[in-house]
């Protein structure tokens, strides 16, 4: 009970601190912008710890964050092997293949207005479908190893990137295209110097959506059969064998990978689309 009370006191104190910080005169500065969400996150962890300890929840159901952190530190080797299998072999390769294929397809489709009109609605529809359901079919076709995971990821990331790239390629306005025409630019020159750069904000939007989907696809595909390593394998066997703390450690890895990849994408986007008005402060 004491742990629960402590957590509640901490919660109220942190909440007060956050209100004070965000209404203070420094609220627009970057230390506060980082500190406030960090305090919020820590509060959630402390509450979780307090509830689990205070109410005596069994670690088999919901382990406290401290136990998850210990397990994480103790089993870094397993986590690293799983990371290599799922993220590097499955998700990353699938993501690369899918993204390159989608961008090339988008450039090809874009040459024909007829195809664009036909494929854009269909692509939009496919992007909204629960494509993750193809996982068992892909495992059946490509075997248990990373190839089937990469195949699921390819199918999942293809349509969001395709649709966004096609839209992006059409986003340069008539004035800009006319200007390039007066320079007597060829199709390829227009594509490389005007339309692809103009499409980049859209492409990165698609890539960011696809990055999360890639992780989901790789993990779900492992539920349907995998070699005896991989994040999805560890999660599904961990739930069965009641090593829930290891499952949470895998979830932590997945969260870190997801956030890291998203951050990386956002960083590259800023480098590539530095010209975009969105980035002017």
């Amino acid at each position, binding site marked *: 009970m004491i742990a629960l009370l402590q957590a509640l006191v901490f919660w109220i104190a942190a909440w007060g601190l*956050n*209100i004070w*910080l*965000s*209404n203070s005169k420094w*609220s627009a500065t970057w230390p*506060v*912008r980082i500190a*406030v*969400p960090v*305090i*919020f*996150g820590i509060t959630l962890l402390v509450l979780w710890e307090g509830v689990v300890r205070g109410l005596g929840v069994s670690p088999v*159901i*919901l382990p406290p964050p401290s136990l998850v952190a210990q397990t994480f530190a103790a089993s870094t080797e397993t986590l690293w092997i799983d990371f290599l299998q799922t993220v590097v072999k499955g998700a990353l390769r699938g993501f690369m293949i899918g993204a390159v294929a989608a961008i090339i397809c988008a450039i090809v489709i874009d040459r024909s207005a*007829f*195809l*664009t*009109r*036909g*494929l854009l*609605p*269909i692509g939009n*529809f496919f992007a*909204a*479908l*629960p494509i*993750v*359901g*193809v*996982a*068992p*079919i892909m*495992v*059946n*076709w490509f075997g248990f190893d990373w190839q089937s995971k990469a195949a699921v990821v390819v199918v999942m990331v293809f349509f969001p990137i395709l649709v966004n790239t096609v839209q992006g390629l059409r986003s340069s306005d008539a004035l800009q295209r006319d200007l390039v025409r007066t320079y007597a630019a060829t199709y390829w020159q227009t594509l490389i110097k005007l339309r692809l750069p103009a499409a980049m904000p859209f492409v990165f939007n698609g890539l960011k959506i696809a*990055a*999360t989907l890639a*992780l*989901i696809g790789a*993990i*779900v595909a492992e*539920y*349907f059969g995998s070699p005896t390593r991989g*994040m*999805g394998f560890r*999660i*599904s066997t961990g*739930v069965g064998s009641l090593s*829930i703390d290891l*499952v*949470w450690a*895998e*979830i932590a890895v*997945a*969260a870190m990978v*997801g*956030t890291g*990849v*998203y951050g990386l994408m956002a960083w590259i986007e800023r480098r590539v689309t530095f010209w975009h008005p969105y980035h002017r402060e």
Partner: protein
Amino acid sequence: MRNLLPILTVLVALMLIWQLAVAPMNIRGALDIAERGGAEIVPEGSVDRRSVSVWRLMAQNSDHVSMGYDLDRPRLPTPTQVGQELWKTTGAMAIKGRAWSKRSLIYHSWITLQSTLWGFFLGTSLGIIGAVAIVYSRTAQLSLMPWAIISQTIPIVALAPMIIVVSSQVGVEGRGLPKAIISAYLCFFPVLVSMVKGLRAPEISQLDLLKTYDASGLQSFLKLRLPASLPFLFTSLKVGIAAALVGTIVGELPTGAISGLGARILIGDQFGTPLAIWSALFAAAILAGLLVTLLDLVQRVALRHTGAPT
């Protein structure tokens, strides 16, 4: 409607590619069955055939290629087979009055739809409440917004088995609620982001005008901010319902559920009946299409009613 012809052309082309792909995908299975039936197959024995490419197999055993289009357990079923299976498990059963039998996809779609709608309702409410909090409180904006973004980069499927374990231990019966939580998790983010944009859509001059009318905070919320956010809301609802359906199916896939479209996919995998997987996939696609179309209609009616530019 001017898009109809291009869309149909693309669809027909996709079907054609699919139909053509069936032959090389199924040739090995077809040859194995033909050989067991006593036919002469050129490289004898399925083990020897494994090192021969499908194209050579098709060229050398051209009589048996057509068998690949009529297998019970094909690697890739034909569009007709999927269509027949879909009809057999929906329309045909409904005619016989067995629409709610456990073998009918209508029943499983209904289970999935229920969780989807609950998750959609929950996620949309959370998204709207979060957006109002973010628009009105700077503390909420600073602390919630980064976590809302981070939450979407966490692959929910990793959490799905845990949500089900925890909720069954807490004493929640059935799988409806955990599935709904997973859908809500995927659904709330698009709604939140759009509603923040929508509630901030009114211009300063419009807010100032309401101030000169001495409007209270609640009045300016109800009469200006909320109506102004409607177009944003509907756009995000369409994304949200599709995401909620994905969430429900993801919630059914890895967790040993026995009813629902995701469970049909899982069971089809375990029993080695690819037709069941394919028909469940198509049922899910049709369900997604229906839900999005329905919301699109509601959007048109609502926006015309409020006079917003469409």
